[in-house]
């Protein structure tokens, strides 16, 4: 488990990171929990790692008006243990504590996970269901990307070359919300992860991860349940139309048919949990 040789640069600011990214074949190192394993297997051999772990402006959680702003280099453990998150964005506390194991949660970061866009990662379902926006910065300036536009395919996002995620902005959620997952037993990534948010106006947001090549909002299921009283019958009806019309992944642990079935089961359970 020895990676190819690479250079290492610890940067102090986002600007410095962006400048360093101009070197071809360089990669941002955040928590390293997705990147380093692939480097050890020599599946990924960047010539330079730019460590953003020392940039203080990328860390921390703060409440700002109607939203919570989470720095991109904030670890999963910091998120799950944050009092603000637990009380005002409980979906994120649930999601963070469902990731990997303690060691992964202590090192891995929300920005790193989102940028990597693993189809079975937990965060994508949560940011989609919560209507978060992802703040990014590049050499041409800063912009905000809606979560619904961020995930574009397998390990593919709306990030452009040279851009770095700086923060995740999430509206405070006043209603009930839940993240439930059926983990792959070895990796504990999501075979199916389902995030459900019940808004004050009765609207329901539903997002899945692990099911398709990227996480997605399930509009058909949302339509089926929104405005209705959630009970066994309506949850069942919504689950019937869930995860239809999308490409469903298949692997050793879950065939296409089984994974689709699990998505429906988990939606039903998640809906009943926010009823």
């Amino acid at each position: 488990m020895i990676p190819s040789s690479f250079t290492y640069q610890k940067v102090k600011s986002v600007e410095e990171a962006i400048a360093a990214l101009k070197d071809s074949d360089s990669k941002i190192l955040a928590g390293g929990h997705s990147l380093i394993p692939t480097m050890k297997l020599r599946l990924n051999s960047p010539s330079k790692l730019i460590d953003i772990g020392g940039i203080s402006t990328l860390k921390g959680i703060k409440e700002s008006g109607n939203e919570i702003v989470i720095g991109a280099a904030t670890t999963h453990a910091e998120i799950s243990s944050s009092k603000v998150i637990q009380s005002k964005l409980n979906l994120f506390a649930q999601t963070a504590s469902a990731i990997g194991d303690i060691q992964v949660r202590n090192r891995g970061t929300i920005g790193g996970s989102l940028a990597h866009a693993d189809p079975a990662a937990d965060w994508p379902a949560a940011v989609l269901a919560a209507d978060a926006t992802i703040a990014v910065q590049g050499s041409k300036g800063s912009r905000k990307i809606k979560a619904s536009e961020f995930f574009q395919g397998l390990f593919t996002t709306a990030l452009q070359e040279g851009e770095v995620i700086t923060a995740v902005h999430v509206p405070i959620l006043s209603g009930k919300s839940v993240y439930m997952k059926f983990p792959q037993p070895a990796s504990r990534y999501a075979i199916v992860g389902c995030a459900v948010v019940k808004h004050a106006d009765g609207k329901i947001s539903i997002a899945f991860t692990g099911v398709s090549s990227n996480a997605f909002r399930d509009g058909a299921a949302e339509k089926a349940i929104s405005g209705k009283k959630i009970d066994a019958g309506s949850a069942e009806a919504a689950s019937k139309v869930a995860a239809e019309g999308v490409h469903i992944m298949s692997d050793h642990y879950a065939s296409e048919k089984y994974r689709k079935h699990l998505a429906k089961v988990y939606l039903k359970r998640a809906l009943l949990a926010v009823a």
Partner: protein
Amino acid sequence: MTATKYIGKSIKRVEDKRFITGKANYTDDIVLPGMTYGAFVRSPYANAKVKKVDISKAKAMPGVVAIYTGADVAAVNGVPCGWQVNFKNGATMKEPKHPLLVADRTRHVGDPVAFVIAESRAEAKDAVEAVAVDYEKLSCVTDPAEAVKPGAPLVHDDVPNNICFDWELGNPKSEVDAAMSKASHITTLEFTNQRLVPNAMEPRSYIGSYDPINDKYTLYTSTQNPHLIRLLMCAFVLGLPEHKVRVVGPDVGGGFGSKIYHYTEEALVTWCSNKIGRPIKWTAERTESFLLDAHGRDHRTKAEMGFDKDGKIVALRVKTHANLGAYLSTFASCVPTYLHGTLLQGLYTTPKINVDVTGVFTHTNAVDAYRGAGRPEATYILERLLDLGALEMGKDPAELRQLNFIPPFDGVKQPGYQTQVALQYDSGNYEGVLKKGLEAFNYKDFRKRQKEAAKSGKILGVGISTYIEACGIAPSAVVGSLGARAGLYEVGQVRVQPTGKVSVYTGSHSHGQGHETTFSQLVADRLGIAMEDVEIIHGDSESVAFGMGTYGSRSLAVGGSAIVKSIDKIIEKGKKIAAHKLEASADDIDFADGRFTIKGTSKSLGFGDIALTAYVPHVYPKDLEPGLDFSSFYDPANFTYPFGCHIAEVEIDKETGKVTLTRFVAVDDVGTVINPMIVEGQIHGGVAQGVGQALFEGTIYDDEGNLTNPSFMDYCMPRADDLPMFETGSQVTPCPHNPIGAKGAGEAGCIGSTPAVVNAVIDALWSAGKKVKDIHMPLTPERVWSALQ
């Protein structure tokens, strides 16, 4: 009588101080002056011609010291197989050469094509990528049942139909067929006992070192048996004189069988160290551990059990294709034969048994002994057939076992039990462990609970497994007659120092078992001294006279017995010295609680006095040698036969198929116990591994012969939160033929648990109206969900 201060006590493990504080000394921790590092170019193809190996670019890379290819070692022997199994017609099994590096043909993914030695591990790895190998990929076969079919790709061109051997044991097939034809019910199972990766926490690691001044080699190796490695490497592979080779097995982080075998890498680092004149370290990467540590199990089996109208077993017929991999590992041939077929009597009085095994080469990694080694395969067959038979016949599985049990016998007043499959059980009380297990589980209430749970939509199931195994491996003459190419005795030396402190040199090798504690307890009690005054030394061929190592749950039963033999000699000599000093006859001296006493008097001398006298022999018997130091070889009279009863309860999530193991009761009879905590720990670890096979683990080879789940992200190991708190109980039926009474506890948990869990899932499915006979292990949620549809 010697008071037992230590035996039977749960004393904390003395070795844990260094393990817990990170101060253990594993092979990879050792750094020798001038040491180099090795890395392998390994075949990405399961079956390919090697047309050209171009090392020119790699050789010029920074830090590269040397590169060896198959052509360089063509004249060196391959690694041998330690057990000869014959075809039914008497012909010797096929033993193709297993070369240190392949020259012309790769036979499994990972087969080594070149060995790169460099100044650092990173430089070696970089140079590996620069070696250009021209392969011609050929078609391959990974399934043993497919590999024997006409036209299947051949692993070795000179082994027709990939058959290494065909073999049978037990009653003639015609007799078994006749008995089977009279059965009123036959339960049939066709299943795969899947392939498992042992996954020791410490990867294999070797350092070869050559000293040209003294013409002497040292091999540091992460092994379960350093002396056996020295013997095999010197005598069969490299042709080196044994007195010029030292093999050291320092602290070893787990083996589960996978570190018994003599691997090609061990011989290669030793051979290369002479060529380059510098030490070479090679440590497996985790991917290499997954791909290349000898795997376990991998049987395709059809088994039939015939019952009479009352449920008495009348016959058992088993046909197995055992996957051996591409080459024969050290004990690959005996695992599916003499460690599997011989256990098919189980705990039952089955009068007719025939087992037929075909050992098959495939384009996969070698398969050899893995915790339990053959006995889990046999137990799985019997215990699955019994529970399934009970379901099919509408009988209670506990009562069905009770009806078929061999009655209790102690092996002293009652003789041992002669099986239909070559073994004689030493002592047993099988109904005893079943009764204890059922009581601990509260079995009589289970069906009621199962029905209640069903009302609230829950699916519960119970599974029983009553197992027996043969361990304390092994009587040399017996195994020799069955094909073993080594003796399986053990050596124990007890050296009493002049001050009465004791150094014990054992050929057993601890890689997690806690020998330093258990053996110290044994020695301290027998000599009536403090445990702190005993030191256990193992693992170095230069300090320990000889040894056969640790596997087959043999350390206490065989290694401990060798130590006891030496202790007996110490006491006998001590009596002579005491008698002389006390002016009495040796026959009149008693030894107890660390004192030599003239019978019926208060005249006595302490153990320390006698030790000092032995080394300062001023007042000393004229015809007696000074010193107090004895070494003994102990060759057991028979195997030992632990047994037990495991009961599992599961709950199935009917929407997802996920199985939750909610309870696990294990009542094991492993004979006399020295340290109950260590035995319980062994049972816990074994049960966890057995549950791992039932619910989580298993290799997945694709059609190209690639292992597609070679990482902990893909291959699921059982974890603490997958398991309930185990409920353990015990019974003690001493082994009648060794001086300790111990039978062995290392593998029991792994042997008994797997079928209990699978039986519980099948029982649950039947209770839900799904009468399935088998689900392919591991019982993943999707497989169970599919069975429920």
